[in-house]
């Protein structure tokens, strides 16, 4: 477990040469190269589905490459499974943490590499001594006795990092490490990364966020659609060059957002209270009020799990409201059924398109009419009229530029995330809602698709629609919102006009700070 002095003759800690990997006919990686200097932070940049994670899974032994070689410390290695990778000093923090929810932090760290006394009995005393050293060295504060399900996402990530260090990792792979963190937590993570590299560890960070690459990495390798594009010195490049190489064309990183001209209030929440699922006495949302006017986007900023999901579900009739009112066009809609809510001209782009927004094994056309299938012309007397459904879907495909072009009969599972999202957006806008809720509308989408979604939302706002944008991405909130409200622990801590809002003041409230302290 100790940091044994390794023969660090080679300049590169890791070299991956000509890696090719196919899944069936699909070439996920095609002749990709990666050279990572010892003691550096190396960013791996690419859109979703470009093959970043596949490449790292090969390095970590979760997949086997069809072709290509891997060198660690200049020596050719065969990584057949994660155990081999761990022995070689490779540790991976996956984007979706691989933690056992009802285990304690200590149990999670030692799992698979347990400290035992005779008869395989776990020895937590001895373990605690060992881990305390690592915790101190890198400032990775965790509560060893707490259960994973009760600790913050930031701490869960520190547990994941500890897991790799405890196994003696010299190379840490961090897969999209900032996706779930608050601005303050991101800063803490960056500090930890610097501590790691200054003590000789090497870090690979997988990301599609350009800002973070500039903040933390020294070099950056870009892959696009499974192909190696380039490796750049981060000092000598800029965000636009990175984005262009990643997408393969010029992209607007921040959409044009012309000044708005809001009309009367169409949607209002007053003194909304929603109970937590787990408890009768605790509230997920407490006395929350907000108003949205015609032709404006209200951005609801906040860290995951502060009541955003509950609010969206309560509006849509998917969750019971304990008290308070939700009104659209002056009509109360709290505790109605989802069907009745939709009838009152409220639409939602769900946070999780696989769970709520789509039926993955239905065709694109069937998904396109999920809300309106009972209405003419899509059905008559309970019989679906596929002619009309297909015609409508073909128009939708054209209008929203959904690829592939002739996909209306295809199972929607086969479409990329961006195209699935376009189907949802098209469907929700077609029902001509007075309030459109966009919940994490760009989650898991790549830069090109994000640009498209953002443009569409702005366009709908300009047409006079009221939009509630709920997002964990602060950049997205700041780029699109006419007003920003910050939610923390089920309450609105403060709100800002478009001019006032910036990363500091919104980020401060997202972390639960209150204005008196500031």
């Amino acid at each position: 477990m100790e940091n044994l002095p390794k023969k660090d003759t080679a300049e590169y800690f890791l070299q991956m040469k000509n890696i090719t990997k196919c899944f069936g006919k699909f070439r996920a990686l095609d002749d990709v190269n990666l050279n990572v200097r010892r003691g550096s932070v190396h960013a791996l940049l690419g859109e979703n589905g470009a093959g970043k994670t596949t490449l790292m899974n090969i390095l970590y032994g979760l997949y086997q490459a069809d072709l290509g070689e891997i060198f660690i410390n200049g020596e050719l290695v065969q990584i057949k499974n994660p155990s081999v990778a761990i022995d070689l000093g490779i540790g991976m923090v996956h984007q979706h943490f691989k933690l056992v929810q009802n285990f304690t932090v200590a149990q999670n760290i030692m799992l698979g590499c347990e400290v035992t006394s005779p008869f395989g009995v776990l020895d937590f005393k001895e373990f605690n001594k060992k881990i305390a050293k690592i915790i101190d060295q890198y400032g990775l504060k965790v509560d060893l006795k707490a259960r994973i399900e009760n600790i913050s996402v930031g701490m869960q990530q520190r547990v994941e990092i500890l897991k790799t260090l405890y196994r003696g990792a010299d190379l840490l792979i961090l897969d999209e490490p900032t996706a779930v963190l608050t601005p303050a937590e991101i800063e803490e993570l960056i500090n930890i990364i610097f501590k790691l590299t200054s003590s000789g560890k090497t870090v690979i960070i997988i990301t599609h966020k350009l800002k973070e690459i500039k903040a933390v990495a020294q070099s950056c390798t870009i892959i696009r659609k499974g192909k190696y594009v380039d490796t750049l010195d981060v000092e000598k490049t800029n965000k636009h060059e990175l984005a262009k190489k990643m997408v393969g064309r010029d992209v607007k990183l921040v959409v044009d957002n012309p000044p708005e001209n809001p009309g009367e209030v169409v949607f209002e929440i007053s003194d909304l209270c929603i109970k937590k699922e787990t408890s009768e006495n605790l509230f997920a949302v407490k006395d929350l009020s907000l108003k949205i006017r015609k032709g404006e986007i209200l951005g609801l900023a906040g860290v995951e799990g502060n009541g955003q999901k509950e609010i969206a579900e309560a509006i849509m009739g998917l969750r019971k409201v304990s008290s308070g009112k939700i009104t659209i066009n002056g009509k109360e809609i709290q505790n109605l059924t989802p069907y009745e809510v939709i009838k009152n001209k409220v639409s939602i782009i769900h946070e999780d398109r696989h769970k709520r927004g789509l039926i993955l094994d239905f065709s694109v056309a069937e998904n396109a009419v999920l809300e309106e299938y009972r209405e003419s012309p899509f059905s008559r007397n309970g019989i679906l009229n596929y002619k009309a459904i297909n015609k409508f879907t073909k128009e939708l495909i054209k209008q929203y530029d959904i690829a592939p072009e002739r996909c209306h009969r295809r199972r929607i599972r086969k479409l990329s995330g961006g195209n699935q999202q376009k189907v949802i957006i098209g469907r929700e806008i077609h029902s001509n809602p007075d309030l459109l809720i966009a919940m994490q509308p760009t989650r898991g989408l790549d830069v090109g698709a994000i640009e498209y979604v953002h443009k569409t939302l702005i366009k709908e706002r300009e047409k006079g629609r009221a939009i509630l944008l709920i997002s964990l991405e602060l950049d997205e909130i700041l780029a699109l919102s006419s007003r920003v409200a910050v939610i923390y622990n089920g309450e609105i801590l403060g709100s800002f006009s478009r001019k006032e809002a910036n990363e500091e003041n919104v980020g401060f409230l997202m972390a639960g700070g209150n204005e008196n302290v500031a």
Partner: protein
Amino acid sequence: MLDFLIPILTTTFMYSTPLIFAALGGVISERSGVINIGIEGIMTVGAFFAASVAYYTSNPWLGLMAGGVVGGLISLLHALASITFSADQTISGIALNFIGPGLSVFLCKIFFNGQTKTYPIHNKLPKLFYNLDVTVILAIIAAIVLWFMFKKTKWGLRIRAIGENPYAADSLGINVYRTRYLCVIVSGILAGIGGAVTTLSVISQFSPSAISGQGFIALAAVIFGKWTSLGAYFSCLLFAFAQALAVTFGGADFIPSEIINMLPYVLTIFVLIFFVGKSCAPRANGKPYIKGER
């Protein structure tokens, strides 16, 4: 009072033992993430082989071992279907429940002169103080050993991790498939022993109705006991107590015996209605592990 209580308690212990072994099998399988609904069928096969081997060798201990070995072997079918081929675990378990009695009766007719019953065995497993079966003690030991393994050892930690989040376990180099295979086989051995105990200490021969619902009651006990070995142990005692009451008062006039015979089963239903929702199944229970998926 004591004269009255002790027989009830002995009967409770006697009836509880097959349930306990089977339920412990259920615990270990489900803790690793494989639902073993086929316990009933495995028990039947175990009960038949135990009775036959005990009859032909005149040694009930050999019978007990045979029950366990055959239970382990037949559970391999379930492991193969549900772990290697990611089949639906409920369906593969139901298949075992059909194969078990079918196979037993078929073999029984071959070895016992065309009868569906085996001949009574010459000597049952021994009894200890207060007429308590030796298997009662074995069941307690088994429950404590499993409890210790799950609570205190690294193997327990790993099995629990696999049942909760196999992807986490795999990423740390733990072999999910091998561990699940082992757990399902041990589950089969325990269920087979459970069946064997029925024919070797409760009754003294195999008949098609020797195992009738015990496997399902054991599964209910797994849930009622919140997937812990000690919890399952005490749940089985409760169910067996209901059965002991049924036996003791079965002949009484004040309640029809049909009603009182229903007691263990009614109790099972009640337990399932009121506790399934609230108890905490292993998160990955019943879900096949497919490498590379999330």
